[in-house]
């Protein structure tokens, strides 16, 4: 597959904008879907999902929190809107920021008061990243994760060794790539380079 190269600006989101602004603007031409205008009589829960679709992840701003599958549930309660999110990694420093930007975005849309709570089980997996999200990752210059298969499948049998993972280059599509670093700029990514087009790129690790 010969996908067209993204502009280099897509790889380096220079301006430091608040997460909500990134969500609205998109980054490097990879726009998150716009929040549709409010329809009269639209349910608060549906409206909340639409707003959340525009809340960017602080560390991978090409994706929204719903693309990543972080939002598990939105419901209405007498105390206000209840949003349940799941953490990606145990030590992900973005967890608090994500909760704050969710609250902020919903309140800015007049949907407050909002309570955000965490749910650990079932554990988040990259399999929950939406197809649209995977496409946006690729366009942003990050190779999307492969499927993990069945959640929690036979971990004891899985050989624990460094294995070559056939990760396709998000720039030129070549499978001739190699891993440069098992850990990248954030906990969720590893660093690769393409041997065909020589470009370095990040890979969202499947977990």
């Amino acid at each position, binding site marked *: 597959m010969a996908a067209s190269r993204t502009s280099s600006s897509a790889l380096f989101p220079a301006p430091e904008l608040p997460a909500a602004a990134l969500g609205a603007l998109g980054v490097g031409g990879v726009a998150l879907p716009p929040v549709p205008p409010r329809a009269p009589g639209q349910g608060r829960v549906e409206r909340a999902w639409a707003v959340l679709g525009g809340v960017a992840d602080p560390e991978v701003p090409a994706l929204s929190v719903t693309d990543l599958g972080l939002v598990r549930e939105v419901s209405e309660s007498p105390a206000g809107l209840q949003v349940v999110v799941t*953490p990606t*990694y*145990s*030590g*992900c*420093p973005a967890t608090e920021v994500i909760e704050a930007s969710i609250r902020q975005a919903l309140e800015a849309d007049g949907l407050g008061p909002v309570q955000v709570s965490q749910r*650990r*089980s*079932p*554990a*988040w*997996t990259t399999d929950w990243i939406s197809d649209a999200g995977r496409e946006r990752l690729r366009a942003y210059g990050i190779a999307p994760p492969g499927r993990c298969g069945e959640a*929690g499948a036979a*971990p*004891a049998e*899985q050989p*624990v*060794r*460094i*294995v070559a993972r056939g990760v396709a280059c998000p720039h030129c599509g070549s499978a001739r790539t190699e891993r*440069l*670093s*098992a*850990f*990248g*700029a954030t*906990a969720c990514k590893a*660093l690769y380079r393409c041997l065909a087009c020589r470009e370095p790129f990040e890979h969202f*690790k499947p*977990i």
Partner: protein
Amino acid sequence: MTTPSITAPTSLRARYLLRIADTCLIHAQRLSEWCGHGPILEEDMALTNMALDLVGQARALLTHVGAAQPQALDEDQLAFLREERDYLNMTLAELPGRRAGRDFADATLRNFLLGQWLLLTWQRLQASSDAEVAAIAAKAVKEARYHVEHASGWVVRLGDGTEESTRRMRQALQRLWPYTTELFDTDEADAEAAATGLGPARDTLRADWQAAVAAVLADAGLAVPAETPFRSTGSRGVHSEHLGYMLAEMQQLQRSYPGGRW
């Protein structure tokens, strides 16, 4: 002004969980000491990224243990305001990783030996009768698998590398191996955990751990050392001389600035 120590939880259940939480916490602190000192930039990032996962795992368990106390304690109180004897980490986690004649081989090998133990522990804890512990484990097991994969790759690389790297890895193995016996020491906290379904007694992890470790050491061209009569006792609160210094550094902010947050 300093913040006084808390009264640490003493129930068998709390002790069982604190051993795992403290092992993650202290191991993370040692890994983070490599920040800016890794032999290559990629390793610098790897060691600190793994530390981050381990801190996250420790936070989740400490929060859970603290909430179950008659007088609720938060994660920071448990992490920073206990006396040395109230920390129940495996001694292996607190040994120096890069000073006092230790080097990257020690750090790598410890990361592998302890990582493999944590991986097996988390795998078994996924079936815990405590739903929150099971949920924490289900998340942690994915991270631990990646840590072990990374660490075992390095053990092979150094063990089966140059004359110098092999020599250093052999020395590290001699230094660290006596502390691995403690990983499978079993006492009343393990017995109760096994009886209530909270988690496995440590001795039941031994066979799987030995098999996994032996396979990697064989690939690295390293012989499995013989067992020695030495017994370390960190998981019972009696630590090596190294933990006190480390805690002084870790606790300094919370002790000096009570309730400090940022």
